[in-house]
């Protein structure tokens, strides 16, 4: 059974979002996603202060098994990236929801947090 924190929202492409207030959202990949990918070896982070569109490819997580694109769950400007991942990509494996966060994005318009998958809906998605 995969760990799916109840305070987060999810996407169908296995990113999680955390509402940090003031239109800021912290983004990472789920425990389920990291377990499918296996040991991380390189992370290509998004560019800080760059604008990304909704569902735009913005980062890459490369594991022993495969390279996997990470998509921006919303349109906005990346305001912070987790540079620790450059030297320690395994943080995504060990702590996908905490130390393994990938970037913080400032939404370009106010959005309904409820538009994303709830923990229950994400659980259903990965159970299929």
């Amino acid at each position, binding site marked *: 059974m995969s760990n799916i924190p109840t305070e987060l929202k999810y996407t169908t492409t296995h990113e999680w979002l955390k509402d940090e207030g003031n239109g800021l959202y912290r983004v990472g990949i789920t425990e389920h996603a990291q377990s499918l990918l296996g040991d991380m*070896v390189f992370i290509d982070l998004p560019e800080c202060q760059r604008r990304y569109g909704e569902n735009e490819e913005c980062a890459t997580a490369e594991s*022993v098994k*495969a*390279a996997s694109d990470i998509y921006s769950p919303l349109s906005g400007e990346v305001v912070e990236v987790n540079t620790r991942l450059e030297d320690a990509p395994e943080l995504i494996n060990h702590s996908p929801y905490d130390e393994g966060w990938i970037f913080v994005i400032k939404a370009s318009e106010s959005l309904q947090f409820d538009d994303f998958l709830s923990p229950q809906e994400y659980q259903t998605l990965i159970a299929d």
Partner: protein
Amino acid sequence: MSDLKKTALYIQHEKNRALMVDFHGWLMPLHYGSQINEHHAVRNDAGMFDVSHMTIIDLHGDKTFIFLRELLANDVAKLTIPGKALYSAMLTPEGGVIDDLIVYFFTHKFCRMVVNSATREKDLDWIKTHAGRYCVAIDVRDDLSLIAIQGPNARDKVSQLLTPAQREDVAGMKPFFGIQTGQLFIATTGYTGEKGYEIALPSELAEDFWQKLEQVGVQCCGLGARDTLRLEAGMNLYGQEMDETTSPLIANMEWTIGWEPQDRDFIGRKALEKQRNAVSEQLIGLVMQGKGVLRRHLPVICTDRQGNTCHGVITSGSFSPTLQRSIALARVPMNVVEHATVVLRGAPQAVRIVKPVFVRNGTSVID
């Protein structure tokens, strides 16, 4: 996954929370949490692999030796000391590789082969087709399990589980030997580039032996680590570096062909002799400095000594946990210069061509 075959160690893998995957019809552990940690355990200490999916074949009969001198591209006549092992290809008449295997010599009437699992059925068909003429009996040892224990401390840790008599039997064993001692067949072979053993034992004893190995501190390792370890060691994987469409001469296996004596007419010999003077490709190693991971099937853009662009292909690629960068095996034309390029996700990346061995006994050999 109910149709998949399970080894005698399946319950142990489940107990150790392995991620189980379909490996050519077998339900096998890919890793037990982190394949990179498992890889490091083998390079720095000791790790163990359940390789019971591999097929052990015993050959009995007065003409066993004569039969193997026809069946295998390497010459078992090189084996004179009982227990000595030999790596060989088994070829089609056209010189393609049916499989690569290890053969152990016990007597001229009794030898043992260990072949790959993915090729099991076609190997057995091929062997039986040719064995009949020599009245060699084929005994498939599905009653045995096979555990590889590898790493600088592997032999010491195994030693703790042996009886005094067994310990005496394995003392001073040279590389590439196998010995039956008590219930264990202990061989100084492996697929990691480290010292260690491959141990065949009756399947009903396998779980107990596996658990005892855990108790003396041997790390459980899955097929993921097995693949990165063999890649670092520059060892071929059947189906990637070679198959029936590949000549051993372009798969770094020239050294395994027993050309002498010239009158030994092994299967595939005539085809290989024709190819021998016109070899146009080679298997080399690639090392990448930058970020990213070289993957199988990616094209390699090379330059020959005249400055012309030519192309090759990656046969196996991964991240090397020991070297902390990506490495690969690739087939490229002969006479290419050291610097080449691989396009990764749209971006050209510089790679260096090296001899196809990256790590030996825990140490980098590429610099």
